[in-house]
């Protein structure tokens, strides 16, 4: 664990931590654009300069690409570092348009923040700015290339992290352009993250443009309701309307990102037909009045027909709070029928999964990312839980073996952002298979995971769980 000194504060960080993160761990924010904790280091923006006063490296260095080492004495406030950073900001701002008032990023723009923080308030450059033609990138994202500061975050996310191939960087030098080969909707189901990851307004959320400013929004930490992965989100609400959804960091689940369904598919929330207040027989009323009427009618119904005739119908899409309250109500009305599923095979499968999953064998997305061997049951991963696919991709890039139990391998593999081997059944997953991954698995004997589709019946869930257990233990079968 290297020990170093940053602005007179002694810091000890795990080996491999860069100086920028080491500073952040003691509350010092070094300005940066291209650096992002989830992406590979680019060293492209030159903004995170610090001065090393003593130790193994000396002078001005880029803190994002400098691993913390024993004996380093770092100054983030040295006049030389400050001057360099202010000049870098001025240079990054040379081509940036003065369009903040009509830019949807305004108020939540890293470039604004660091331009002000860097002390660059007056433009000296009088020449022509470089300009580009924008592209149509689909209904989710608005493109405005003139604002680009060439940090390469977007392309590093889109191609390297998410495995997309239809968006990238063309040209060189002052002509560098981030876009597609031709106008058209972005193909990656993770494209919306460009909005979050761009430090300025090159990519903005077209579904919520020009509605409100950052300081107008009400935020609340939330969980995405679209699939069972449970990605953390931060919905942005203005005057009782959901304007935007952005990712909320959770390293155990979704990391920094969410999929496009979670981000853009929100029309139903603002649907005018959605009931927004309690009603009795179609007439709006207060909550107390509605609850009293409901209690009265339930009690009348039970009085006439008995509790056994009453069914309380929930849904797997009900919020956790709602589902628990419905259960409470069923317990209170002893004898009422409680159901959450449309048919019994769904409820059987869910029950089996709940019973068989425990702290030892349940895997989080971050467990998946670190797994050595992953078996996917016949499921459409991009449909059932797109962020799972990104976690599997991360594992696969790190050398994990990925197997897909598929009836029609070609169809199931088509859209996956990682390579996998198709096998006929779970029993065919070769635990002791050759290759580096197999050897590592034998050595570490951990991190084998299975994931299956919804709608499996009880015995299928049991089989999958047994297979997962066998993989986890590294045993040779039941």
């Amino acid at each position, binding site marked *: 664990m290297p020990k170093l000194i940053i602005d007179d504060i002694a810091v000890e960080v795990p080996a491999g931590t860069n100086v920028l993160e080491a500073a952040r761990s003691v509350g010092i924010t070094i300005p940066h654009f291209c650096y992002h904790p989830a992406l590979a280091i680019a060293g492209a923006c030159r903004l995170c300069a610090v001065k090393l006063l003593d130790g193994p490296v000396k002078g001005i260095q880029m803190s994002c690409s400098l691993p913390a080492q024993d004996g380093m004495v770092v100054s983030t406030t040295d006049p030389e570092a400050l001057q360099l950073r202010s000049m870098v900001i001025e240079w990054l701002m040379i081509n940036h348009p003065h369009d903040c008032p009509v830019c949807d990023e305004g108020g939540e723009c890293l470039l604004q923040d660091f331009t002000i923080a860097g002390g660059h308030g007056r433009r000296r450059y009088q020449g022509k700015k470089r300009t580009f033609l924008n592209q149509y990138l689909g209904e989710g994202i608005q493109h405005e290339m003139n604002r680009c500061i060439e940090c390469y975050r977007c392309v590093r996310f889109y191609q390297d992290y998410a495995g997309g191939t239809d968006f990238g960087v063309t040209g*060189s030098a002052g002509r560098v352009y981030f876009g597609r080969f031709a106008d058209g909707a972005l193909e990656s189901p993770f494209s919306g993250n460009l909005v979050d990851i761009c430090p300025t307004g090159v990519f903005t959320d077209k579904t919520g443009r020009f509605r409100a400013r950052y300081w107008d929004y009400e935020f609340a930490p939330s969980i995405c309701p679209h699939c069972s992965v449970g990605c953390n989100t931060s919905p942005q609400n203005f005057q009782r309307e959901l304007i935007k959804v952005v990712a909320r960091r959770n390293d155990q689940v979704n990391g920094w990102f969410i999929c496009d369904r979670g981000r853009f598919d929100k029309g139903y929330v603002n649907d005018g037909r959605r009931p927004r207040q309690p009603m009795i027989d179609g007439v709006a009323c207060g909550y107390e009045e509605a609850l009293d009427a409901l209690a009265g009618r339930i009690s009348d119904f039970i009085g006439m027909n008995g509790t056994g005739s009453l069914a309380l119908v929930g849904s797997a899409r009900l919020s956790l709070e709602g589902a628990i309250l419905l259960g409470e109500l069923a317990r209170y009305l002893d004898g009422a029928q409680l159901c959450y599923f449309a048919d019994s095979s769904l409820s059987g499968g869910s029950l089996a999964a709940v019973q068989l999953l425990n702290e030892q064998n349940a895997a989080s997305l971050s467990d998946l990312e670190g797994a050595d061997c992953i078996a996917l049951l016949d499921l459409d991963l991009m449909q059932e839980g797109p962020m799972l696919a990104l976690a599997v991709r991360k594992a696969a890039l790190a050398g994990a073996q990925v197997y897909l139990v598929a009836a029609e391998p070609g169809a199931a593999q088509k859209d996956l952002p990682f390579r996998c081997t198709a096998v006929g059944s779970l029993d065919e997953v070769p635990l002791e298979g050759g290759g580096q991954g197999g050897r590592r698995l034998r050595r570490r004997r951990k991190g084998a995971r299975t994931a299956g589709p919804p709608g499996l019946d009880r015995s299928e869930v049991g089989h999958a769980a047994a297979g997962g257990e066998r993989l986890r233990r590294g045993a040779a079968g039941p």
Partner: protein
Amino acid sequence: MMPEALRTSLQARVAAAVTPREAAVDVMKELQAHYGWLTDEAVGEAARLLGLSELQVEELATFYEMIYRRPVGKKVIHVCDSISCWCACCEEIMRHLKERLGVEPGGTSADGMFTLLPCCCMGMCGDSPAMSVNGTPYGKLTPELVDEILARERALAS
């Protein structure tokens, strides 16, 4: 459409590479030699040969200044504007060429003979200022020498 013989030879080139991307520059150069410039159709063909997307081929094609994504004249003149040639007044050479050919950098002369492009260092700093005409290097340039070279290259073409 590219001829079958070219397709077969390019497929062999890609197969011989450790990773297909490594063969991308060779494939683009061959296709450019065939079409005269790297047409949109050629980008698509290169993408299919290399197993890349069109965008990924475009990324490489637009990075390299000797891959042309626009139609060019019979011969392409690259005038170095890197530091050594700049110190040796390459701007005067560029100005002279613009005048003689009647075009701005990026343009093609009215007779379709020459396309004029600036380029970065060709490794001819010792003979600066330098330029190349269809791959033939010329150094120690003066306006008079440029006129001679243009005449010679024009004669060779006809």
